[in-house]
């Protein structure tokens, strides 16, 4: 079975995120960015100041690799800025003999609408070997258009974006054969998840990272419905052989086990280890702590391009561990592994102004996933054993497409 593609540099790279715009062509209903607008756009000067700050403080960024991340809103609305700042980064890294010159990546998470445009394509051509571009396509047209709608419409005139996104998928896959997509599930999406995952596989997207939103949007009965859909999905993936070439994050051998409170105590989320920068040049421990991402709390600004980073404000993030922030039911949970959280959502939902209160809104959804996941692996292993393929499966399951070098 194919496994989800590994993270570049095993996830050990420093993530530096530029919030280049808060504008977007879409008004996705589940978007956690509550403060999107068309006014706040990052200028080249601010982006350059941020790059200069980071590169001038090489000792404060000892990681061997870096991922320069560009987000929005929709980042490709600012392709001119991005092109310019990416050129600046490459040149500066080289001129300064910076250790990152040998190990960097530019990463984008896009709605895909502008992917085919001349400017975006020129940018891709120029930077091909250092790019990671994820297009968000939520599954079937029905599921995608349920939430990913163009802004400006009212409820009777909502226009979904599926048709405009899907036409760019073949080009994207040709240019980046090993890519995956990230799919978000909210309460209203549950009935569509099975068809959506299979649909994405059929489009040629072999890595589908699909997760429930962390916000408290779940209704009574959602977990049961979720479980039943996952069981159906498990059956299709196995019975129709999709598992040979495709991976879906719902099913993983790692989830659903108890966690030792000492040996497995690391924080799930990388907030604090990454750096996000907004249009005003403010620094955040993650984009989820910027004002436009928060419903009810003040943003956590840890510094800015002029004054630098206040390391005291990073201490809580870098000290975070699983047990300190989790309620006792999570520490005692027998199926804890794989149960994720988002530090920004934890902060936003917390009863006090703290990052140390883990939100458990997805508890029942995780447990439903665990039961379906157990079913999946029991069924798959049995099938492989009966076919005499179990050994080969174990041997091959780490294979991923090699880099041609």
């Amino acid at each position, binding site marked *: 079975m194919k496994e989800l593609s590994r993270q570049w540099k095993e996830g050990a790279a420093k993530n530096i995120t530029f919030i280049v715009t808060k504008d977007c062509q879409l008004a996705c209903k589940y978007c956690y960015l509550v403060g999107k607008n068309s006014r706040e756009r990052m200028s080249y000067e601010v982006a350059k100041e941020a790059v200069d700050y980071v590169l001038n403080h090489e000792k404060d960024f000892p990681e061997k690799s870096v991922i320069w991340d560009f987000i929005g809103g929709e980042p490709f609305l600012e392709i001119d800025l991005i092109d310019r700042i990416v050129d600046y980064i490459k040149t500066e890294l080289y001129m300064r003999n910076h250790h990152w010159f040998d190990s960097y990546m530019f990463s984008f998470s896009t709605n895909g609408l502008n992917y085919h445009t001349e400017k975006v394509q020129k940018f891709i051509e120029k930077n091909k070997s250092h790019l990671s571009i994820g297009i968000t396509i939520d599954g079937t047209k029905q599921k995608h258009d349920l939430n990913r709608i163009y802004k400006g419409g009212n409820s009777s005139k909502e226009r979904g974006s599926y048709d405009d996104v899907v036409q760019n998928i073949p080009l994207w896959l040709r240019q980046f054969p090993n890519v995956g997509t990230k799919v978000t599930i909210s309460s209203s999406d549950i009935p569509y998840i099975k068809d959506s995952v299979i649909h994405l596989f059929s489009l040629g997207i072999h890595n589908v990272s699909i997760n429930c939103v962390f916000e408290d949007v779940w209704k009574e009965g959602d977990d049961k419905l979720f479980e039943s859909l996952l069981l159906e999905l498990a059956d299709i993936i196995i019975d129709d052989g999709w598992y040979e070439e495709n991976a879906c994050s719902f099913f993983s051998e790692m989830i659903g086990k108890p966690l030792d409170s000492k040996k497995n105590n*690391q924080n799930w989320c990388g907030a604090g280890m990454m750096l996000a920068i907004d249009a005003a040049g403010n620094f955040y421990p993650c984009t989820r702590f910027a004002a436009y991402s928060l419903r009810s709390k003040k943003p956590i600004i840890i510094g800015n391009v002029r004054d630098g980073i206040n390391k*005291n*404000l990073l*201490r*809580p993030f*870098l*000290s975070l561990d699983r047990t300190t922030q989790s309620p006792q039911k999570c520490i005692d949970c027998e199926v804890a592994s794989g149960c994720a959280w988002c530090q920004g959502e934890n902060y936003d939902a917390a009863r*006090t102004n*703290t990052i*140390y209160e883990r939100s458990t809104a997805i508890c029942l959804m995780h447990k439903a996933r665990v039961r379906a996941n157990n079913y999946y692996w029991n069924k798959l292993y049995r099938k492989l054993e009966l076919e005499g393929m179990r050994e080969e499966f174990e041997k091959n399951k780490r294979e991923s497409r090699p880099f041609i070098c």
Partner: protein
Amino acid sequence: MLQYLIILLDDTATSFCHYLNPSKKRNLIPQETLKQGIRFAMMENLTIQFVYPEYKLPKGYEKIIDSIDHTKIMPFCAEYDHEADVYVADENNIVEILNVNRCFSTIVLRVSQYFLLNNIESIRHLIHKTDRLNISIVDIDSFNEEDFNQYSSALQILSQELQSQYKSGKTRQLNILTDRLFLTKMNNCGAGDTVVTLAPNGKFYTCPAFYYEDEADNLGNLEQGLNIKNAQLYKIDFAPICRHCDAWHCNRCIWLNKKTTLEVNTPSREQCTVSHIERNASKDLLERLCEQGFKFPNNSISEIYYLDPFENKELWQQENL
């Protein structure tokens, strides 16, 4: 477990810790609120610490206060001569204290780090004037690298003085040096955990500083009771840096934590470093006093090669494995 209740008798009650009291306008606690606060403490089995303003309280208040066993924390001023259990003084009071012809029980001395580092001789003399001296550096978050070095040297001077006092039979206490000799576990500020504050408005707060910072940030009130959300974050077990630390005397000011790192359970680098400089000075003092035959609960304090335990993060994580 809650053990103490601080009652601010007025908005202008003296600060006895790192925070600065910004209140200029008097706002005396109503007698009824005071009575209810005392009743609450009795029912919860809490020891009360009354914090006084710089003026004499109106008639009737002392009778209410005397209805329960308590500690009086009073500003060092003429109004309260011979009345306080704990006197709170600052830089301006030192000369007067040194000239008074008696020894005090407990003095809390609130000073800036600049004053401390540049007037160490005065402070050395103060040790003679009180059984216990609590130094509270009001701007601990402003320490820089040079200040740390100077602080280390200043502690040596105070340490020599204490050793000399011990030799002549006077076991003086100085919080930043001698507390660590006697402690066997963490003993800190305790705000929100072992102690809460009742303000003149009848509401509970983590400590007086939280009241002065934001009146709306309260932990309940006398009518509806105490309500501490995320109460676990005030406990050592839920402080990732502190639970591995052995600077047991550290004040670990919760308000300073919140001010500098935005979390009540995480101290700043400055607070940690200052505490470790003190810890190391205590270690030296302990060794010298033990050589002279004095006995303490701990025979030794271990050698460490860091001043900020946060820099040792990987070691704690290894210890967990």
